[in-house]
């Protein structure tokens, strides 16, 4: 008689049979806890988006390392990051590094920089026109690559065609994020430090927030008289015969360094560069502030939501107390509830952050979310949720079973 009914009920029951009171309540009355979950999600988003943006900036800053053709890089002994600080080495190290049998090519990073001016392209093409004045003026950082095939200064994601284009004199490549800022497009001509240059390629994923970056060949740089000529050169880029042996070679090179240099694998240097970003005071202050703000908002809203939820079930809690369930057990239910709210909040937070990073990606703004950072934010959200739970424990005092008698 009741077969179909009980079968259906049996299925529904089996799903929640083993679930605790806290978890069942959270799932069944999810609307009540929505505010807390959303608050946690946005707290997490605030911190994750900030940190992710900084990490993304760091990543694009280190893009030249991560995607360089070098398996090993050689910096001055005290240097902990690629750019900034004394990272260059004496030129005479180049033949010394070549002595290692597994080294195939050694070259060095050669940076420059100067003023970039866009020009009115229409006026430029008009027959018999005098070269127009620069319109917009920005300072750019220039990285040079050696265009010989297999040179370690060529990023791995540069196509053969792009390298070929860079072989032309006065050819430059810009990242897509720099185009608007510099006021140029692919194929445009512009002025760099008084020289006419032509944008022959556009890259993606080399955003630089401090200063737009530009890439040209070492030969072009030399033509402009901006290449290193002295006895010191930038960090060395080393290509190995077998990239898989990088760690071994680094260890061997460092063993024979005599304090003259330090060799790094690409991954090692990238990590060190990222870490050095967080030594920048302002980033730490901004991150700390976002953690503080996110925490404050998260606790306030989660706490109030939990209080309301406890109050809504206060009679049920009182009836459990009447039946002899102690205050300690009820407190555990609340703490467990806040734990689950935290877990759901973490999930919602990552979902939101993922959506935001998709949006940011569409605008070429890189964001990066390394695992330790995600774990730290998860821990933060869980702490927020549990703290809110502890704060709302006082509400349980209102569960007086004697009040149920009237």
């Amino acid at each position, binding site marked *: 008689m*009741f077969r179909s*009914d*009980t079968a259906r*009920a*049996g299925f*529904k*029951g089996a799903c*929640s*049979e083993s679930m605790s*009171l806290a978890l*069942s*309540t959270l*799932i*069944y*009355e999810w609307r009540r806890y929505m505010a807390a979950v959303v608050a946690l999600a946005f707290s997490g988003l605030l911190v994750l988006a900030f940190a992710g943006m900084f990490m993304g900036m760091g990543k694009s800053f280190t893009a030249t390392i991560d995607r360089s053709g070098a398996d090993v890089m050689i910096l001055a002994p005290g240097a902990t990051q690629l750019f900034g600080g004394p990272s260059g080495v004496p030129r005479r190290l180049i033949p010394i590094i070549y002595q290692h049998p597994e080294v195939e090519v050694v070259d060095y990073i050669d940076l420059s920089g100067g003023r970039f001016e866009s020009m009115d392209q229409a006026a430029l093409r008009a027959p018999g026109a005098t070269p127009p004045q620069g319109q917009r003026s920005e300072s750019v950082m220039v990285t040079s690559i050696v265009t010989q095939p297999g040179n370690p200064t060529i990023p791995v994601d540069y196509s053969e065609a792009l390298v070929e284009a860079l072989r032309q004199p006065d050819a430059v490549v810009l990242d897509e994020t720099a185009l608007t800022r510099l006021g140029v497009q692919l194929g445009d001509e512009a002025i760099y430090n008084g020289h006419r240059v032509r944008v022959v390629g556009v890259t993606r994923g080399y955003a630089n927030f401090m200063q737009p970056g530009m890439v040209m060949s070492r030969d072009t740089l030399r033509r402009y008289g901006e290449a290193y000529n002295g006895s010191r050169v930038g960090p060395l880029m080393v290509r190995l015969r077998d990239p898989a042996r990088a760690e071994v070679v680094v260890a061997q090179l460092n063993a024979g360094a005599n304090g003259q240099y330090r060799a790094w694998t690409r991954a090692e240097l990238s990590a060190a560069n990222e870490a050095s970003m967080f030594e920048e005071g302002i980033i730490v202050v901004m991150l700390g502030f976002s953690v503080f703000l996110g925490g404050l908002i998260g606790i306030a809203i989660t706490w109030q939501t939990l209080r309301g939820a406890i109050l809504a*079930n206060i*009679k*049920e809690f*009182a*009836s*459990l*107390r*009447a*039946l*002899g*369930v*102690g*205050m300690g*057990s009820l407190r555990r239910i609340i703490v467990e509830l806040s734990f689950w709210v935290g877990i759901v909040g973490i999930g919602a937070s990552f979902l939101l952050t993922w959506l935001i990073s998709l949006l940011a990606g569409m605008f070429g703004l890189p964001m990066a979310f390394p695992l330790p950072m995600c774990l730290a934010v998860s821990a933060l959200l869980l702490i927020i949720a549990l703290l809110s739970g502890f704060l709302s424990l006082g509400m349980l005092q209102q569960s007086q*079973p*004697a009040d*149920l*008698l*009237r």
Partner: protein
Amino acid sequence: MSTSASGKHGTPAIEATGLVKRFKTGRTYIEVLKGMNFDATHGDLTMVMGPSGSGKSTLIAALSGLLKPDEGRVDILDVDDLWKKSSGRIDRFRLDHCGFIFQGFNLFPALTALQQVKIVLKYQGLSPAEQDRRARVALEEVGLGHRMNQRPAELSGGEKQRVAIARCLAKSPQLIFADEPTSALDGENGQVVIRLLRRAAVEHGAAVICVTHDPRLEAWADRVIKMEDGYILSDEKRVPDPNPAPLAH
């Protein structure tokens, strides 16, 4: 098929003497219990009746360890002077021996009938298998065998009260305190509930103390105590009517 018997018929379950309870209202105190003596025996359905404000609810709160009286002592089962114990011990005593049925059903909206009953058994420290077995027996006993996986929103008022009774009976309590258990129910459901309480007394030997102002429940009682203004007006033993008139509202 039923929960185990919990007391010997006719033996004393509760003896309370000189209970006094005052409540503060503004600057004055209102004395709700004025030196009451009370006793109840196993196997009896004891009805405490009286108008609102006569102190009946305060009385069972004091008897059951929910509200400490200002004076007097409560000897209950084998515990001498319950109110001398720590609040943790009193909680434990209630967990082991007392069942409560309130006017409101006080069921967690998120839990199925089966889970409502099991949760208390869990805190009694029973194994999951035993929790399940006892909860099912109790729900069968109140006639909800086919509604075990329903949540309160899917149950009628009468069914909810029966879940609350099952939650109470599953513990096999020696003492059952019911406060206006039928006043939120229609006549038919009220009858089911009072019948279950009567069964708990007769078949399980529990001392059932039922507070009500519904005169029609009198017919089911072994003993009727009438209260007014914190005193006992009358205390009569009676033989329950084997075929009481149906309750109707």
